[in-house]
Structures are given as C-alpha cells and as structure tokens.
C-alpha cells in the first residue's frame, strides 16, 4: 500500500509542475493574440487615452514577465485575483475593489453548473456505454453488435452542435417533451434543474458513448481468447456470467482509463453544447474571457481544466492499480 501512496504523492507533485507549465503556456498564448483587454472591451470606441487609462489601471502597461510574476505569487498565496472586467468597473465607480467580485466568486457558480452537467451526463453515459459494450462483446458480430457500433460511431462522428440540433428537433420542437433552453440559475428547484439539464446531458451522452463502449467491447473481446476464459466456458458457464465475472474484472483497467478521459472531456470540452443550449457553465465564461483577453479568468479556467485532467487521470491510475492484484503487489 505504501507504494501506492508514493505513486500518488509523486503524481501530485508532477501535477503541480504540469499546472505551472500550463499557466506559462496560456499566459504566453493569450499575450500573443492580437489586441489586449483594453482594446477588446472598448471596441469601436477605443481612443488612445481610454486605452492607456485602462492599461494603467490594470497594470497592463507593465512588461509581461512582471505581470506573470505578480499573478503567480498571488495565486500561490491562494488569491486568483480580480478579473479585468470587474477591476475595470471598480475603477469606473471609483470604489476601489470594495466588494468587487473575485475570479473565485465569478467562477464558482459556473463551475458548479458544469460539474452538475458532467455528473448528470456521467450517470447516464457510463452505465449506458459500459452496458452496451458488454452486450456488444457478448453478441459480437451479430446484428445488435453492428447496429450499436454504427449508432455510436455515427453520433461521435457528427459535430456536437449537429447532434444537439437533431435532439432539439425531435425532443423539443416536434415533440415538446424537454426544454431547448437550459438556462439554469441559482435557487432553481432540483427537479426543474434536472429537467433543463437533460437535453445537453443526452447530447453529451451520445458524443462520449462511442469511445467508452468500443473500449469496453475491445477489452473484453481480447480477453475472450485467453485460456482461463476457455476454462470457464468448458465448465459450462453461461456466456453472460463468463463475461461479467471473469472477463470484465480483468478488462477494468483500460475501461477506467477511457471513462476518466471522457469525464475530463465533460468538464473541459463542452463549450459548443453550452452555447447551443445556453447553459451557464464554465465553458462560456472561458470563451467570453478569451474574447476580451481577460487573463486572470482565462488562467483560472485553464488551471481548473488542467487540474481536472490531472486528478481524473490520477484517479484512473489508482483505480486500475487497485483493480489489478499484480500491480497492487509489485515484486
């Protein structure tokens, strides 16, 4: 077990290093984009004086290295700062930052919404995909196998917004069962929130199913040729029992990895679906912030995205180790 703890500690440390590198890359990338916050927010009304005033207020006139250093030290002390947009208004009203919204306060409700959507999707998609994968392995090369493969591949090959519109057409326009607008807000009841989240969750389910389902199917089928499965079959076990009791536990590691990868995708990659359904998640905030070059928010979002990948991958590795006795007790 101590080896497991050591692995976790090692991976967390590497994770922090990754976050650091990610933050440098993002900061450089956003700075390389044409225009800055002052020009973006003023748009057509950008006069030289106004641009200079905003830059001065926000410290954008400092060299990039200084700005990055200030951001880094603040972040290390747990302060993600105030978004440029909010800081700009604070200087407008002359009320310093008095009660100004911090990046944390801005992101928290959006991130909560994103987690909610990811959670609902995962609850539907993971059992659905794994179940479908097991059945496909069980009835491999049958019409069912081919049909479900085709269905999964078709939905992953179509762009997300297309899948979304198809679902809207069938479930909201032609048969008004579900709302096409997922504008959830604070104080909304759980039932209503769930109902409004269902369409985007279904869309995402269709998008992520293929990957998980095909991995499940492939992992199980590759085991079906091994001698111990042969043995189980020769004992006269039912095919379903052979797969669920004997093949599946040994196929878990790759399945868990794929599930973790898809969960991370659900947190970081759902911008398009959020836009189509007007879902107030972190993706929209992220895109808005990139558009106006609001670096503190962009950085914070990226850290969250990177952390989600790192943590979910770590969890996947731990779970695969735990699911495999050979890895649990290394020689």
């Amino acid at each position: 077990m101590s080896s497991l703890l050591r692995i976790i500690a090692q991976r967390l440390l590497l994770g922090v290093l990754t976050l650091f590198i990610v933050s440098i890359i993002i900061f450089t990338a956003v700075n390389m984009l044409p225009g800055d916050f002052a020009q973006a927010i003023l748009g057509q009304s950008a006069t030289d004086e106004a641009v200079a005033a905003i830059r001065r207020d926000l410290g954008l006139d400092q060299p990039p290295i200084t700005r990055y250093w200030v951001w880094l030290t603040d972040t290390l002390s747990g302060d993600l700062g105030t978004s440029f947009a909010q800081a700009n208004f604070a200087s407008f009203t002359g009320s310093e930052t008095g009660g100004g919204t911090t990046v944390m306060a801005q992101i928290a409700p959006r991130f909560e919404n994103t987690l909610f959507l990811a959670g609902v999707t995962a609850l539907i998609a993971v059992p659905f995909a794994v179940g479908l994968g097991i059945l496909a392995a069980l009835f491999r090369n049958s019409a069912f196998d081919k049909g479900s493969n085709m269905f999964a591949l078709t939905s992953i090959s179509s762009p997300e917004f297309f899948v979304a519109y198809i679902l809207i057409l069938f479930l909201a326009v032609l048969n008004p069962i579900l709302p096409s607008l997922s504008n959830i807000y604070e104080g909304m009841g759980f039932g209503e929130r769930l109902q409004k989240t269902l369409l985007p969750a279904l869309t995402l389910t269709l998008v992520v199913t293929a990957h998980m389902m095909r991995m499940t199917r492939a992992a199980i089928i590759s085991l079906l040729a091994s001698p111990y499965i042969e043995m189980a079959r020769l004992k006269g076990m039912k095919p379903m029992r052979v797969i669920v009791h004997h093949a599946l536990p040994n196929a878990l590691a790759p399945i868990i990895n794929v599930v973790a990868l898809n969960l991370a995708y659900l947190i970081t990659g759902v911008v398009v679906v959020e836009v189509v359904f007007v879902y107030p998640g972190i993706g929209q905030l992220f895109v808005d912030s990139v558009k106006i070059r609001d670096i503190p928010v962009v950085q914070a979002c990226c850290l969250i995205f990177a952390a989600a990948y790192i943590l979910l991958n770590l969890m996947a590795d731990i779970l695969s180790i735990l699911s495999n006795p050979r890895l649990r007790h290394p020689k």
Partner: protein
Amino acid sequence: MTRISRRGLLRSGAAAGVLAATGLPLRAQEAKRGGRLVAGLSGANSSDSWDGRTHSDIFMSAAAHGAVFDALTEVAADGSLKGELATDWEASPDAKVWTFNLRQGVTFHNGKPFGADDVIESLQLHVAEGSKSAAAPIVSAISEMRKTTEHQVQFTLESGNADFPYLLSDYHLLIYPAGQIDEAIANGIGTGLYRAVSLEPGVRFVGRRVDSHYKDGEAGWFDEIEYIAINDNTARMNALLTGQVDAINRIDFKTEALLKANPQVAIQEVSGNQHYTFPMLTNVAPFDDVNVRRALKHGVNRQELVDKILLGHGIVGHDSPIGPASQYVADLDPIPYDPDQSKYYLKQAGLTELNVDLSASNAAFEGAVDAAQLYQASAAAGGININVVQEPADGYWSNVWIKKPWCACYWSGRATEDWMFSSAYEEGVPWNDTQWDSKDSARFQELLITARAELDSDKRREQYGEMQRILRNDGGVIIPMFANYVQALKTTVGTPETIGNLWQMDNARMAERWWDTT
C-alpha cells in the same frame, strides 16, 4: 422618391427594400396589467453591471435604461421627445442655458425621494477623473450644473445646443440616488418601473414591477420581466420557436422563413438609423481628391448590397449618415451605379484607372467581406480595381479602423443630426473616421456649429439638408445601406401601434410598452 416620415417606418413582413408607410396591425386595442415577459436577447457579457457608463449593447440597455432606471428625457416611439424624470424644460434664446423642472413625488426603489442632487451627481459620474464613459462628451459640454430648487436644475452649456434635451435621453445617462451611487450600481437601484430582483452578468436579469409609479396607466404592464442572455443566433430562434421565450431580438435572416411559417410568431421590423459604411481617410492619397471619391460613389450597386447582404432587410443609403429615425432627414437624390460616371470622374482626377485597397472584416458588420467583394466586382467596370484585404476580426477597431485608408465600418446611428455629425464628422473629434474637416468643406463645419444653436426648426431643416447634400456629393464615406432592426415575438404579446426605431426592441423599452394579451 417619396418623403420618408419617421412615424411611418414600420412594417411587418418583408417586401424587400420597399417601405410601406403603414403601422403594425393592431392586435389588441387595450393594454392591460399582468403577466410575465421572457425575452431572449443577444449582446450580454460576463462583464455587465448596472453602471450606465459601460453599457454598449441591447441586453444592459434594455435592463437598465428600459426597465430599472430612468433618464431625464425619453424619446417616444414616434420619435418625439417627452419628459421622463423631467416634466418640462426651457432654453435661453441662444440655447446655452437650459432649465429643467423635475418630476415631484418620485422615489427610488430604496425609498429615497428623487431631486435635483440626484441629477447633478449622476451626470457628474461621466466626467469624473478617469471616467471612460461613452457619454462623456455630452456632459463635458455642460460648463455649470446648478440646483435652483429641490426640483429644478439649470444647465449652462459651453456653447448653444438646441438638441440638449435630446442628448439627456441617452441610455448612458441614468439617474442614480445621490450619495448612494456605489450601492445603486451594485444592486440596481433606480426610479424605473421595474425593481431589479437579480442580475447574473452575461446570463440573466429578472425585474419585478414596482407597486406604484408615475407612469402607471401609460406604461409598465407586466408584473415581472425576465431577460435571458442568448448570444447564439440559432439558440435564440429555437427558444422562441419552442415557446420558452416571448420575444427575441436580431433574428437570423437566413432562417426567417421558419419563423414566418409559425402562426404563433410575429416578426417586427423597423427601419432605423443603423448604417453600414466604407469610410476613407480624406487626408490620404488618392482619397484626398474629391473626384476619386465621386468615382467610388458611382462604383457601388447599392440596391444589390441591400438585396444580398441584408437580404432585403434595409434601405439604400446615399452617403449621408442621417437615417429614417431622424427629424431632419433630407430627400437626397439617389447615387446611381454608373461605371461611365466613375470613368468620367477618374478622368477629372487625371487618372485612367484606380487601384485601391479596401480593408474588411466581419467584425465591422455581418457580411462586410462579402459586401467588399460585391463592391470590387461592380467597381471594376468603371476602371476601379479594388483589392479586398481581409483583416482579422480581433483588434479590428484598434488596428484597422481610422488606421487603414479605406475600410468597412458600421454606426448604430444617433438620435439627432448634430449628435451624429459631431460624433463622426466634426473637425478633430476622435471618431472622425474620414478625417473630414474644413479643408474638405469649410461650409459643412460652419453649418455644424450654426445649426447646433439654432432653435428654429425650419432653419435647422434647411441647414441639415445642406450638410447631408454636401456629404452625398463630396463626402469621404460610402454609406450604401441602412440596416433594419428585425425582432420576433409571440402573438400573445401585445404591442402599441408605433414601434420605436431608434434602438432595437422598441427602443429597448419592451418591458414598458408591451403587454400580455392572454
């Protein structure tokens, strides 16, 4: 061409490029209280707040100016000016000193009574140290604001301005409670018909009708209003088609037919002052030669642009920025597309052919690159070779506009002639995107100053008419089209006969003017 009246510019339906002088059909005669309006609006940002100085798009102007806050004056749907927090006003003969009587018995949503101090302090916000308010030029033209009584304010202007009461209707100039402005900006405390219940920037606004208001019986019919930020065109259309919102702004022309086919949805279309332009820098060769500018004016097929870029949802412009929602719009002669005229003027300029770059990006307006290419194709016949330079949308307004000699641009238009001209055509102002000054037309700059202080309406009509003709003939801007405001609403929403055409969505005042008929 028939004279365009500013009252008659409403039409429901299409009829490309033709202006029928009819109002929208009356759906319900009587407005009534009750119900809830849910509108899906574009133009929301995560940086939105109740600070009027930062408002630049429909979402916040509809929530603040159109519901929670009031200004001193208001442009009515028919374009006339009426008092909002001011009841009446009068000017000295030189239009320099203006006395405004304020409405009595008005209270802010937190109970504070409204008075002269609120007006003065709210206006001063725009010229405060470091302020980046878009309305700063309006307020900085006031040399003195004096509280004469608790309900009377006297403004002394640097120079006479007959439009001053109009300027005070601007959506940036919201009135906040004096001494509590920070709190009012944080929580949305105004004198408007709707109290702010919640504002999630870039997501959602909810307002509830105040119990009693000075506009009772005239406006403010809904019990509650909700504005949902839907920046995506298709999502907005879907929300209306599936009945989750009652009204949307800026419909997508390409899918307009789908909305039309739905019997529960009505399309509302008004022609306003929003125009798309191609400004050239008149201090840069070859555009410093008036003959080159004239050749270019005849090189574009304006009707084609209206048909193909606006898909008929607009009217042809004649290089004057004064649109149909203006008081003194002149009846200008159309500028025909005529390659022979282009050649003639090029010859006048001593040229046989002209090679110019035209910078465009869809950041200027939707379809700007296509419009530039159409221009290129039509101008070629007249010996003008336009090289269309596609610019990146990011930083377009900082790096291309007023920097490159000729580019694409848009203006949302202004309520008054003077405001429009002094924003973009007065010598030395920062947004003068054609560098238009007295070297081009001393007469124009002179008229701009005289007309501003002129209180006689007939004389002003003459003066502004002449200015528009100067721009039509010699100006440095090509204004091929005015784009309509097109919005859609459920047929269960009642609307008055006349719909405002100064801004989208009935001048962003649908919360005040519309009602629920169910």
